[in-house]
């Protein structure tokens, strides 16, 4: 189909172009691209609002994020000085060759990482969040049952169960779900077969919006990889593959300090995981490239975080010699590689795996380790979790608080990692289906509360934080969808 024909008339050109776009599939691609932008970027604010407001409207949050960033950077710089390792350096040619040969099996490398420490761990971050205060909010009263008894003490608006029921209506009791209605006891004719058929149709139509709606009821395993790619608008074009190869050559040529942090993180977490150890090498291939990807810097326009700036040696303070460090502005923390690991079950082609992860990061994961007031930000999720627990399981909440086992201390790590490494992989993927479907991370807080509700009986009997941790140590047998459904739709409020 081409418009380069003598029959094309000037009078009907507009209609002809529209028709051409439709038949060639470009209309759909444009729609998907626009839809993607709408999902990612926040709605425009007041024309007079400064750009910081798009990152984070509340001043005290911006300030807190800034202080946290300063701390992280200080920690990184001091490690750098202690170990006399430069933040970045060019690799000698023979080392470059060696790395290129070993690219597919970097896991067999055993560099001495004993002196490297993760820059921070989730629990360090929790301490910061606990100390967040809104200076404009005077809460003179002593904490009581009327106020909030949890660790988060900032007044953000979070949803209650009636609102969540509405938002997550597709998880209701009378609607079919994968993760519940595809179990061995249910004949596939009831729901599963039809759902698979609809999924295939959605993929055939290549419609992002339809896919996003569809996955709210879960993805069939065989369709999941394609559906996620459709929602995230990833098509793995030749230019994307080329871009990835370019990043790879950046890795070969330059060595970054954060590379060692990444190695250490993978060795400590994914390599020891029953599900993900197999993919260790893929994790290096993704994360080392990720650190060097400057296109990730774009997400800082809508993230409350700001990329750390560093200066070429000897030019401290001279703006022309300022660089972002690492190039993508994201400093990995302990457990970071677990964001990538589950995706290895879906994508075995490195450049596609890379793009999917990058998109997941700039849409969702960045919110889990930056301080903001966004409803999907980690602060709101913590508050949502604590509020749900305090409102619906007050006895449990009070008991745990009394024995020094604040629930958030246990559930925080689950939410920061989006439950990766805690749930069985098939359950995790069902959970992430819903994150994509609802374009929100709130489901993480709801699940965390649902897990506590599920183990409430045992938790009521413990008498220490350690014992509470033990009750909740193993989530690998949990079935996510029934827990969510019961908590939202079948619990007496």
């Amino acid at each position, binding site marked *: 189909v081409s418009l380069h024909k003598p029959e094309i008339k000037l009078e009907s050109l507009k209609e002809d172009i529209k028709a051409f776009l439709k038949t060639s599939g470009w209309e759909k691609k444009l729609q998907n691209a626009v839809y993607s932008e709408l999902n990612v970027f926040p709605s425009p604010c007041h024309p007079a609002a400064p750009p910081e407001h798009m990152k984070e409207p509340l001043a005290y949050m911006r300030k807190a994020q800034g202080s946290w960033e300063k701390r992280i950077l200080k920690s990184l710089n001091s490690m750098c000085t202690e170990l006399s390792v430069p933040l970045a350096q060019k690799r000698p040619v023979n080392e470059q060759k060696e790395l290129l040969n070993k690219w*597919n*099996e970097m*896991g*067999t490398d*055993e560099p001495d990482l004993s002196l490297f420490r993760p820059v921070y761990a989730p629990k360090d971050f929790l301490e910061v969040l606990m100390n967040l205060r809104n200076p404009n909010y005077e809460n003179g009263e002593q904490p009581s049952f009327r106020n909030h008894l949890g660790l988060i003490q900032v007044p953000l608006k979070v949803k209650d169960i009636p609102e969540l029921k509405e938002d997550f209506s597709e998880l209701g009791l009378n609607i079919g779900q994968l993760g519940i209605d*595809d*179990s*061995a006891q249910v004949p*596939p004719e009831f729901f599963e077969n039809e759902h698979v058929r609809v999924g295939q149709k959605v993929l055939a139509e290549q419609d992002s919006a339809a896919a996003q709606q569809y996955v709210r009821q879960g993805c*069939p*395993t*065989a369709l*999941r*990889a394609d559906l996620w790619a459709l929602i995230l608008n990833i098509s793995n074009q030749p230019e994307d593959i080329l871009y990835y190869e370019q990043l790879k050559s950046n890795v070969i040529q330059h060595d970054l300090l954060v590379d060692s942090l990444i190695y250490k993180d993978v060795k400590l977490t994914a*390599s*020891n*995981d*029953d*599900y993900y*150890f*197999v*993919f*260790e*090498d*893929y994790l290096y291939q993704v994360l080392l490239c990720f650190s060097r990807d400057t296109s990730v810097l774009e997400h800082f326009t809508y993230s409350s975080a700001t990329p750390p700036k560093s200066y070429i040696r000897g030019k401290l303070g001279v703006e022309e010699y300022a660089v972002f460090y690492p190039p993508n502005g994201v400093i990995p923390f302990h457990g970071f590689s677990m964001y990538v690991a589950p995706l*290895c*079950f*879906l*994508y*075995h082609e490195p450049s596609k795996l890379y793009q999917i992860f990058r998109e997941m990061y700039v849409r969702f994961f960045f919110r889990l380790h930056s301080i903001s007031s966004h409803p999907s930000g980690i602060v709101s999720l913590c508050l949502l979790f604590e509020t749900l627990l305090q409102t619906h399981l007050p006895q449990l909440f009070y008991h745990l608080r009394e024995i020094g086992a604040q629930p958030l201390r246990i559930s925080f790590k689950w939410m920061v990692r989006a439950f990766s490494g805690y749930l069985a*992989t*098939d359950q995790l993927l069902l959970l992430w289906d819903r994150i994509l479907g609802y374009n929100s991370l709130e489901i993480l807080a709801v699940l965390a509360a649902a897990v506590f509700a599920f183990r409430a009986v045992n938790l009521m009997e413990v008498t220490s934080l350690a014992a509470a941790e033990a009750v909740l140590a193993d989530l690998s047998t949990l079935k996510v969808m029934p827990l969510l459904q019961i908590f939202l739709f079948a619990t007496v409020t």
Partner: protein
Amino acid sequence: MSVQTIRNVFSVETGYRLSDDQIVNHFPNHYELTRKDLMVKNIKRYRKELEKEGSPLAEKDENGKYIYLDFVPVTFMLPADYNLFVEEFRKNPSSTWIMKPCGKAQGKGIFLINKLSQIKKWSRDSKTSSFVSQSSKEAYVISLYINNPLLIGGKKFDLRLYVLVSTYRPLRCYMYKLGFCRFCTVKYTPSTSELDNMFVHLTNVAIQKHGDDYNHIHGGKWTVSNLRLYLESTRGKEVTNKLFDEIHWIIVQSLKAVAPVMNNDKHCFECYGYDIIIDDKLKPWLIEVNASPSLTSSTANDRILKYNLINDTLNIAVPNGEIPDCKWNKSPPKEVLGNYEVLYDEEMAQSDGPDRDLRSRSGQSTGVKGNRARDSGKPVLTTWK
């Protein structure tokens, strides 16, 4: 009871007889299945027999390869079949072959070759074959090495599945749902320089345990359900189901192949460890069957699995924890199966028609096959379900 003890128990010299309330965990001549050379011999014999009776199962394709029964890599006995082997080798001189001693386990004595000179010792006319001892210990099998294994995360793996046989005639066998994949700790490379690096090629845990990268938390093992999830997600459901159907098929066919020669002593049951490799076209290959699969544990998860395996096995062999009686009908009630699923029940298959469907659904289970009656119509592998 170990295989040595079994040999004594059933040996003609000791004159020992098992009483009715004694059940043992090996069949007297289990080696028909568990010795590499005898297994291959029995399968070859079985195929020829089916071919002779004109069974559709023995159908061959244009290249003369069995369509449904080609599941063991081309294998020869050495030194007996040396010349036949040389003929085959010369057809594909760049191929790699794996030499395995017949009587050993745990990966002992295995090595790879890609040049005839490497196995000169086994040539029948060789002047250096002064040790041409016909003792079974020195005999080797040589099989075509599967150099295009399916790789996951770039790593090679094999499948270990547990199969319990309570009787051979009629054949009644059960498959343990919780099999696992054993990954090599070192990246797989078909390059010839790595032929000597056993950590790349052999997946026996006994060998991997001594590699530098062996991890004591997961032990380089994956559950079969992880494998299924990965394959369904990356390759699709139909081909994954077909793969698992084929795996069940080859297990049952291997048991049927040895059933006629097995001493179906009613005092016996046996739990075998099947080793299967999947190639990159998703075709499963039977590598070997172990009579004494390792019941030691290398990780915590492993200990739980092996404990449950023994527990479930004994529940089927001797249900209700009662005093065993070898005369019972060996039909345990469904409740005691535990993590086992009926793989094939010859009696049931013959009493019901080919329409009987014992499929158990759900993507995570191994699926249940019910009705491959011996002379049924043309079997289409995907309708195993």
